[in-house]
C-alpha cells in the first residue's frame, strides 16, 4: 500500500495523543493537579492535531461530516464517532473531576474511549481481507499498545513505558513474522484472481502503459532488503533503544527517549503501509 504521509502521521500522532491522553486522564483520576490538567490539555490538543491529518487524506473533505452516518457498519465511521466523543468527553470529565464534581474513577470513561478510538483506527486496517498483512489480531493489539507506550513516555511514566514497550516489541515482531507467513500462505494467487487454473499465470500486458490510481495506491513495491533494514531500524528506535535508555540512563530527559521512540514508530508505520500487499496486485502481476 502507498505509505501516505498523512496516514502515517495521522495514525502515529493520534495514537500517541490518545495514549498520552489516556495516561493524563489516569493521572488526573489518581489525583487532580495543575500538572495533570495541563497534561490532559496538551495530549488532547496533540490528539486533535493528529486526527486532523486524517482529513488531509480525504479527496473531498467537504463531505467529511458524512462519515458520522454509518457507525452501524463502518469502522471508519466508528472511529470518527469515538474520536469526537473522546475529544468531547475527555475535557468535560476532566473538568468535572478537577473541580470535584465527579469522582476520580470517572476518568475511566474517557480512558476507555481513548483506547477504543485507537482500536477503531486499527480496525479500519484490520478488517481488510484484501490486505493479508493487516488482517490479523496483532494489528489492533500493536496499535493500542504502541499508543499506550508512547503515551506513557509522553506523560513521563518511564516505568509504565518500559512495561508496555516490552510486549509492544513482542507484538511488533509477531506482526512482522506472522505477516510474512500470512502473505505466503494467502489463498489468493494469480490463479484465483484470474480463474485461470490450467497452468502458471503471468501478467503479460497491463491494461494501460501508464500509471493508475490502483497501482499508485495499492501496488507499492518495497524491496525486501530495504524493508528488512527498516525493520531493524524501526524496532531499534521504537522499542530497543528506548527500553535501554530508560533502564540504563534514567537521567536522560524522557522527551529525548520519546523522540527516538517516535522516530521508530514512524518507521514501522511507514513499513506498515509500504509492506502491506493488496491482493489487487495479483492482477498486475505484482506481488
Amino acid at each position: 500500500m502507498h505509505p501516505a504521509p498523512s496516514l502515517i502521521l495521522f495514525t502515529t500522532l493520534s495514537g500517541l495523543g490518545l495514549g498520552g491522553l489516556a495516561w493524563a486522564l489516569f493521572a488526573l483520576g489518581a489525583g487532580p493537579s495543575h500538572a495533570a490538567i495541563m497534561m490532559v490539555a496538551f495530549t488532547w490538543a496533540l490528539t486533535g492535531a493528529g486526527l486532523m491529518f486524517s482529513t488531509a487524506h480525504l479527496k473531498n473533505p467537504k463531505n467529511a461530516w458524512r462519515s458520522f452516518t454509518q457507525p452501524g457498519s463502518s469502522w471508519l465511521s466508528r472511529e470518527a464517532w469515538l474520536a469526537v466523543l473522546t475529544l468531547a468527553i475527555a475535557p468535560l470529565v476532566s473538568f468535572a473531576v478537577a473541580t470535584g464534581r465527579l469522582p476520580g474513577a470517572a476518568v475511566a470513561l474517557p480512558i476507555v474511549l481513548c483506547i477504543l478510538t485507537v482500536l477503531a483506527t486499527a480496525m479500519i486496517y484490520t478488517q481488510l481481507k484484501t490486505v493479508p498483512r493487516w488482517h490479523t489480531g496483532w494489528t489492533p493489539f500493536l496499535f493500542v499498545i504502541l499508543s499506550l507506550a508512547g503515551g506513557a513516555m509522553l506523560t513521563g511514566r518511564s516505568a509504565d513505558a518500559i512495561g508496555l514497550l516490552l510486549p509492544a516489541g513482542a507484538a511488533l515482531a509477531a506482526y512482522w513474522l506472522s505477516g510474512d507467513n500470512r502473505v505466503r500462505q494467502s489463498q489468493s494467487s494469480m490463479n484465483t484472481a484470474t480463474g485461470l487454473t490450467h497452468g502458471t499465470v503471468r501478467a503479460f500486458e497491463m491494461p494501460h502503459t501508464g500509471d493508475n490510481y490502483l497501482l499508485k495506491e495499492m501496488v507499492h513495491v518495497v524491496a525486501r532488503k530495504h524493508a528488512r533494514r527498516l525493520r531493524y531500524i524501526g524496532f531499534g528506535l521504537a522499542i530497543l533503544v528506548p527500553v535501554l535508555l530508560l533502564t540504563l540512563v534514567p537521567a536522560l530527559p524522557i522527551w529525548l527517549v520519546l523522540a527516538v521512540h517516535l522516530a521508530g514508530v514512524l518507521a514501522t508505520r511507514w513499513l506498515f503501509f509500504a509492506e502491506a500487499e493488496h491482493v489487487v496486485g495479483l492482477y498486475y502481476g505484482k506481488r
Partner: protein
Amino acid sequence: MAAKGTAPVTARGYDLSPKPGDEIRKTTCYMCACRCGINVHMKDGKVAYIEGNRDHPVNRGVLCAKGSAGIMQHNAPSRLRAPMKRTGPRGSGQFEEISWDEALQLADDILRPLRDTNPEKLAFFTGRDQSQSFTSFWAQNFGTPNYAAHGGFCSVNMATAGIYTMGGAFWEFGQPDWDHTKLFLLFGVAEDHDSNPIKMGIGKIKARGAKVIGVNPIRTGYNAVADDWVGITPGADGLLILSLIHCLLKAGRIDLDYLARWTNAPCLLDTDGMLRRNGDGKTLVIDRNTKAEVPFDTAGILPDIAAPGTVMEQIAERYLSDEYAPESVAARCGLTPDRIRTLAAELARVAFDEAFEIEQEWTDFRGETHKTMTGRPVAMHAMRGISAHANGFQTARALHILQILLGTVEAPGGFRFKPPYPKPPEAHPKPHCKVTPGKPLDGPHLGFVHGPDDLTLKEDGSPARIDKAFSWENPMSAHGLMHMVISNAHAGDPYEIDTLFLYMANMSWNSSMDPKGVMHMLTDKKADGSYKIPNIIYSDAYSSEMVAYADLILPDTTYLERHDCISLLDRPICEADAAADAIRWPVVAPDRNVQGFQTTLVKLGAKLGLPAFVNEDGSAKYADYADYITNHVRKPGIGPLAGWREGPEAFPEGTDAPGGRGEAPSDQLQRYIEHGGFWMRHVPAEARYFKPWNAAYQDWAVQMGLYDSPQPYLFNLWCEPLRRFQRAAEGHGTRQPPDHLRARIREKLDPLPIWWDPSEDIPDAESYPVHALTQRPMAMYHSWGSQNAWLRQIHGMNPLYIPTNIWEAQGLKTGDWVKVTSPHGAITVPAAHMAALNPNTVWTWNAIGKRKGAWALSEDAPESTKGFLLNHLIHELLPPKGDGLRWSNSDPVTGQAAWFDLRVRIEKAPAPDGEQSQPNPGTSASPVPEGAANLAWQVRK
C-alpha cells in the same frame, strides 16, 4: 436483455434516465478504414457521445476502442487550425498561418506551370485515402501519371494475388461465411481493415463452438482466442501451404467437381505454357462426356480435369513432389511434420466430411441448374502476415489455390466475395501513363496488367512512373509503390520531379522504411542550395510528423466535420449479401479555419481549370465535394453514390426496387442522412453463393451498375499473365526485360505458386538470426491514436517482446533494454518477455513511437521517450549483395514492401541516457499549442 421495469428511476438523486443527447446524427466512423456506422449524440450542438449504428451493415451497432474514443480525436489539441506556409527550414516545424485564398494561390502558382509543360513533374500520392476514385480522377485530369494511394506498401500482394487468382481478394473485399463455417483458418492477421466484422465473426463462430486456427508467430488477439495456434516461423507460410496442398493431393482430398466446373484446372496448355484458346479467345477444355475440345463455357459440358495436357496435370506434377512433403518443409516452418499432416487432415475432414447442402436452386453460366448449394465449411482469411514478405504474392496465390482445391471459395461455409467483387482480372482497367501537357492522362493510372505490353514504360523502356510501378522491377504493382516515391524523387530516378503532393500519409515517419533517411531526402539540397524535391504540399488534419516537411499545408477537417463518400467505385461498405455505400457528412461545423481536403481539391481543380472541374465558360463546376458527390457522372447512370437513383434505368424491367444506376436526385445526400448515412441492396437468395458463375448474381450485378454485362469466369489456378512475363524473360516477344532482371522474372513470376526464402537475399543472414515484426494494436490506428487522450493511456509506449529462449539466453529482466541490430542499422529500446511467441521472433506494436514535437504531445511523452519505431531498421533497398546492384526490399511481382522480412540480432544493452530509446531524431517545433493539463470532458452542464 433489458432490465425489468421502465418507470423513470432515480438513484440517490441521480437521473437514471438521462437523455444521451438532443439529437442523433448518423454518419461513418473514420477512426480507421473499417467504415463503421456511428450514431453521434449531440447536446447543445456539440458532440456528446458516439456509439455504433445498429442498422449498419459493417458493424451492426458495435464499435471498437478507437471508434468509441472518437470524441477525443475530434477535440484533440493536435488538430491543425488553418492553412500554413513554411517559414523555417524544412523539418523545423516553423510555419505561419495563411488564408485559404493565399493557400490556393500558392498551390496554383506551383502546379499551373507543371500542368502546362510537364504534368509528370507532379507526384500526387494519397495515403489512407477513402476517396481514391475521386483523388485519382483529379490526378488523371491534371494529367500526371504519378498517382497512387497507399496499397503498395500495405497489402498489394494480397489484393493482386486474389484478383489474378480468383477475381477478388481477402482484405475487405470478401469475408468468411461466418454463419456456416465450421473451421476458420487465419493466417498472419493481427487486426486488418475489417476490424469489427472480423471480431464479430470470430465471436459468432466461437459462440457456435466452431473451431478457429491461428497461423501466426505471435499469439495475441485473434490468435490468442484461436483454439489451435500454429506458431509458424515468419516467411514460411507459402511452404506450409504448399505442403498442405501436397498432402491433400496425395490423399485425393480435393473437390474434383468444383475444380472441373469453376476453375481453369481442366483448361489445356500449349507447349509454351499458354492457355489454349479458340478464335474468340476462349480457353479450351475437354468435355468429359464427348471427349471433344470445346470452349470452357459451352453449355452442357463437364470439363475433364483428368485429361492430359491440362493445368491440373501441371499442379499434380509440381506439388506431388517430395520437395513439398511435410518432412522436407517442417523445419523451416518451425513445425513438426505431424503438425502439418494433422492440419491437412483437419481441413479435409471439415471440408468434405462436414459438407452440407443449402436448399437453394441456382443456375450457372453454362445454363445448368443445380438443386442445392453445396457447403464446404472451411473458411480462411489472411493479411499482411503473408503479404508483407517478398514472397507474399506467391504465398497468397498458394493460399487461394488451397482454398480452391478444397472447393471453399464462394461455397457456403467458405470464403465469400463482397460486391463489386467477384470481378475477373480482365474486367479491371489497365494502367495508363500517356502524358500530354495541359491535358488529362489517357486513362486511369492503376490497374491490372496481363503481360509486358501493359507495362507503363517510356519509349526508351524506362519506367514512366516516378514510383516505377508497372515496370520490369515490379510488373504487377497494381496499387503503385508509394514507399518508393520519395527515394526515387530524391535520386531523380527515373526522373526528377518538381512537386510532391501528399495527402493523409505520415511519410516522414511510420509509413516509411528508414524514416531518418527519408527525413534527409525531404530536406536534402542541391548544389545551388535549393531543395532536391523543390515543392512539397501536404494535407493532414493533425499535427503529424510529416507536417514539418511540407512547404504548404492544406489542413483537413476531422471526420465529423466533412463530407466523404465511401463509393462502389472505390472501397465500399458492401457485405457478401449486399451492395452498400455510405457517406460522411458534417455533423458539426469546424471551429477552425480548415476545410475538407476533397473540397480543397474541387476548388483547386477549378482554379487550375482542370476540364472535369470547370464548365464550358470556365466557371467552377462543383461548389464543393458534396456537390461533386451528387452531380458527378462517371459513366451514364453511374456516379459516386448508387443509392436513391431515379429514372427508367433505376427500375429496369421486372424490378420494383431501384438498383445502383440512374439519375442522382438533387437531395441524394439528404436521403443518405435520413437513412443513417448508408444505402444497401441485398443480394437475392439464389445469387448469394457461387457468384462468379451464378447467372442470377451476374444479372443482379449488372443491374446494380457493378458490371456493364455479365462477366462469368474461371478461377486461375494457372496465372497466364505471369507466364507472359516469364516468356518475355525467356526471350520471347518485343518488350524485353533488362538483363539484370531476366533471371528473377523467369524464376519468381511462375504461373503456379512457388516458395522461396526471402532471407536468402540477405547477405550474412546468420548474423541476423531473429525475425522482427510489428503488429497493429487493436486500440490504435497507426500514428493517429497517440493524440487521443484515452487511447494513448492504453498504448503510451511499446516494448520489444522477446521469446523465452532469447530472454533467458541474454539474461534479461523486466525493465531491461536491448540493442537490436539489422543489416541496415541499430536501435536501443525497452524489452519485455513473451512466452506465447515463435522462438525465432521478436515484435512490437506498430507506430506507437512518436517524434518529439508532433501530435501536440509534450516532449517527454512516453511515446517519444520509450516508444520507438522498428522502421529505423528497415530499408527500402536490401543490403548490397555483391552484384553491384541494390535490390529493393519488396516483392518482385508486385513491389509490395517487405516489412516483415526484417532479420535482426538482439543484445542486452544498458538503458540509454534518460531512458531515451535510440535513435532519437530530435524535436521539431509544434505548429499547434500543447494540450490542456487536465481533461474532464463533459458537454452536459
